[in-house]
């Protein structure tokens, strides 16, 4: 599903070259859950952005189903993202001017799904996340946990092959975080979606199939 090969990224800060990661290798199979852990500032989010095509590597390849993501132009990368990937952010990042139902329907709208399919999917996902009663509410009227549930539903609405989650429980209390994590894993498995979670929470990482630590620019396997 996802294969990062020989991936390098560095920044130049005040004339000094700062390596974020170098000659990085990563594979993620369909339906697999991978947790990426590391200290703050270790480059986890940068790696996630490079893997999703939001950021570009200095060298190396990111193959999505055998296709080099960074060999494509920006519009094509965006198209791959909108069709094959889903995102869950730490700060939920819902669209404040759209209702809960509209937020969930947005990825379907972007890929041009018919209105009826949008409606059915939204209803199914709202039931799945237990927020059927909030369809017409705006995000700012929901709690943090509820907003993150809506974000997960939005990320899965168009049935992506790859789900990228950046600290999905980082802004939630332990109990809610645990509940959200359970839901994320359940829904990803139900859809056979490969899931890459960036986190610095050990309990969250422990629920993944595999755990990798980003340390000094290299990935090191950890026991799950």
């Amino acid at each position, binding site marked *: 599903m996802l294969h990062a090969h020989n991936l390098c990224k560095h920044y130049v800060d005040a004339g000094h070259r700062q390596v974020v990661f170098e000659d990085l290798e990563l594979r993620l199979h369909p339906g697999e859950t991978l947790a990426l852990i590391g200290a703050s500032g270790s480059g986890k989010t940068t790696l996630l*952005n490079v893997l*999703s095509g*939001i950021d570009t590597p200095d060298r190396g390849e990111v193959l999505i189903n055998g296709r080099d993501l960074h060999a494509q132009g*920006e*519009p094509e990368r*965006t*198209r791959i*993202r*909108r*069709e094959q*990937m*889903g*995102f869950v*952010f730490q*700060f939920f*990042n819902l*669209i*404040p*001017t*759209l209702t809960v139902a*509209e937020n969930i*329907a*947005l*990825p379907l*709208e*972007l*890929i*041009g799904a018919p209105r009826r399919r949008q409606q059915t999917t939204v209803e199914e996902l709202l039931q799945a996340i237990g927020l059927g009663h909030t369809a017409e509410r705006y995000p700012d009227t929901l709690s943090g946990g509820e907003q993150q549930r809506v974000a997960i539903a*939005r990320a899965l609405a168009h049935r992506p092959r790859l789900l990228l989650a950046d600290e999905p429980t980082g802004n939630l209390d332990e109990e809610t975080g645990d509940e959200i994590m359970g839901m994320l894993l359940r829904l990803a498995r139900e859809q056979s979606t490969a899931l890459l979670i960036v986190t610095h929470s050990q309990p969250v990482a422990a629920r993944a199939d595999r755990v990798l630590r980003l340390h000094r620019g290299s990935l090191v396997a950890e026991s799950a």
Partner: protein
Amino acid sequence: MKRLPRLLLRAGVNYQWRHPWQAFLALAGIALGVAIVVAVDLANSAARATFEVSAKQLRGAATHRVVGPDGRVPTAAYRTLFTTPGLPPMAPVMRAWVEQSGSGRRLQLLGLDLFAEGAFREQLPGAIAAGDLRHWLNQPDRTVISAAAAASLGLSEGDSLSLQIQGRQHALQITQVHGESSAATRDLLLVDTATAEVLLGMPGFISYIDVIAGDRPPESLDALEALLPAGLRLVSIDEQTRSTVGLSAAFELNLTAMGLLALLVGLFLIYNAMSFSVVQRRDLFGRLRAIGTQPHEIYRMLLSEALVLALIGSLVGLLLGALLGQGLTRLVAQTVSELYYRVSVDALHLDPLSLLKGLALGLGGTLLAALFPAWQAASTPPATSLSRSGLERDTLRWIPFLALAGAFLVVLGLALAFLLPGGLASALLGLFALVIGAVLITPASIPLFHRLLQRLPLGGTWRFAVRDLKRHISRLGTATAALMVALSAAVSVAIMVESMRGAVGDWLHALLNADLYVAAEDFGNGARLPDGLAERVLSLPEVAQASRYRNLQLSLRERPLAVVAADLAPQSRAGFRFIQRLPEQVWTAYDRGGVLVSEPLANRVGLHAGDSLPLPTPEGERSFQVAGVFRDFASEHGRVFLPWHSYLPLWKDERINTLALFGNGQDAATLKRAVAPLASIDAPLVFTEARQIYDESLQVFDRTFRVTEVLRSLSLGVAFIGILSALMAIQLQRRKEFAVLRAVGMTRLQLARLILLESLLLGAIAALLSLPTGILMAWVLTAAVQLKAFGWSMPLTLSAAPQLLNLGMGLLAAALAALYPAWTTARHDPAPHLRED
């Protein structure tokens, strides 16, 4: 192109809906800009359309007109033509504007010969078609008027209407009031030609002969033209109407330019509002990009949002424009009547073309203003939320390029205005290039002011305020530019009006150097002084010298030309200021029969001293050598002074309109006492001192610029909303920062003071920048626009008063705009904002 995802459009429109004040300010910018443009256009077209409708109704089926060299045609010439077989149908017409005694209300007197009328004016509603011959024939001093005219005069059938015509009192009996009212009949008095001849004091003359060419072969018109006595001409009425309406073209274009300037200020408001909404949603755009929204979809989302705002704002603007247009129409009609052609407008004419133009400008302008913010939004990188400081850094990087482009536009504007040919349009285009250039330079000045102010030993809140100048350059840059444009428009118009007023004042002062002016009452309508009066006045011991003037209304290249036949006393000659030749050379040529040509005429026709000027005379066309070109603000269409000894052999009419008297050292009152006994009841005289004419002339001048003043104030109003919106945007963005300041101990008062100080700095910078910009604009306005529009050249007058007033206005506007944001920000509880991410 793929359709824009529905939810993206919804997200955009919902954003505006959830930020009503922001949407309101953007809408206000669009609406006010459109309203001003539409109002100006409606006012211009109302005067024009009313004149055209009125002219069309009064001409009826006539297609051509036989006119004389001084606005009259001998009745004998008409009789000869009328009785010549094979010529097209003809009807004599007498036409003049007269005054109702007491009220001074102007009415149009139309004298017609019912026997000749035939099919001429059947369209004239109710008046002639329904006219009963009994009302006209065998009864002198009878008139037929419309019900609307009767109602406005407070008269009804059978009443007597008192008129003052050429200084004499007359009474007309209203024999019939017809029911229909239109632009033509609202001020119309219909009389028989015989009555008109007596009333207008034109025995043996008519105003013109109307001709119906209809389907007749062109040869019949050729035959008519060939039979015309010397001095008479056959003209097409369509062309005559067009050229009359065309007289005010430059005036209208000037007003349109002022309206567009207001729209330009409005566009800054839209830009500001859109740009702010983009900055506020950078995170959102980043999220949208992360989940796969293409840049062009975000671009189109923003433009669609702008289009929705533009549509609502423009529609509101059209409504406001129609309301504003009503007031402006009266002002424009008054000016047009005073300067160009008499028109009576009592209702707004909603010209669909003006409304469409307003809508197109509103939509097009808003989209234009939204292009850059939309591009900024579309180039938001996915997921990453660029910080405010990132945007400010970006803006700072762009500033030098913008300033360079601005400098180029300023130079281009000046070149367009002064160097390139192309008349008024290129001068106005140059003016706009100059304004836009100055706008682009404005943001570059903020870091300079910041550096300068930083060096001042200021403390506390001042330091905060100065620091923020550079930190918020993207927002402050546009707000400052918006205020700068409005203030420089105000400065430039003030300088232009002042320069012009000064030039007109100097000109009047030099020209009006006689002790006393004597004229027949109603001399404005061509009333002449009694025969022999000049000789009797000159024989008085109190009178040392006198100049005699006879006013003629001729035409040159289908435009009216005021010709003054003058016997000038040496002192009157001293009042002329010549442009091309030395006075001695000019007067020598004048005494040899040359004519003096005014500067506007010389500029329009391209005349120089020594050239030849053909003029229509009763003896046919004659050429006169141009003795000199004199500075003149009396008419933009031009004036010609013709030596008395050249005039008399051709016109053979010794009667004069005005006498300018120079006493033997006595004051005007003594002179008046000496001359007064020469007046009679039949021929009352008007005595006017130079001072009085001077004051009255300047009053007319001030009235002419009232419309400009109104437009200037409106532009300032739009700019005020601009600063208000910019300040509110900044305050909203900085809620958390202010909350932190409050949390660490800044008092409400200190916070309010900070906001006020920031706003005042903005106002001061805009006002300071508006001085050089305004002066440059004034230079273009006076030395290029006015010269090309009206043919007037004048020196630029720079006095401190308008500049200081402008600085005050800038500071006041900025202070007023800061009041609400300062109040709301200081009032808010900081706690919720401290929790914001």
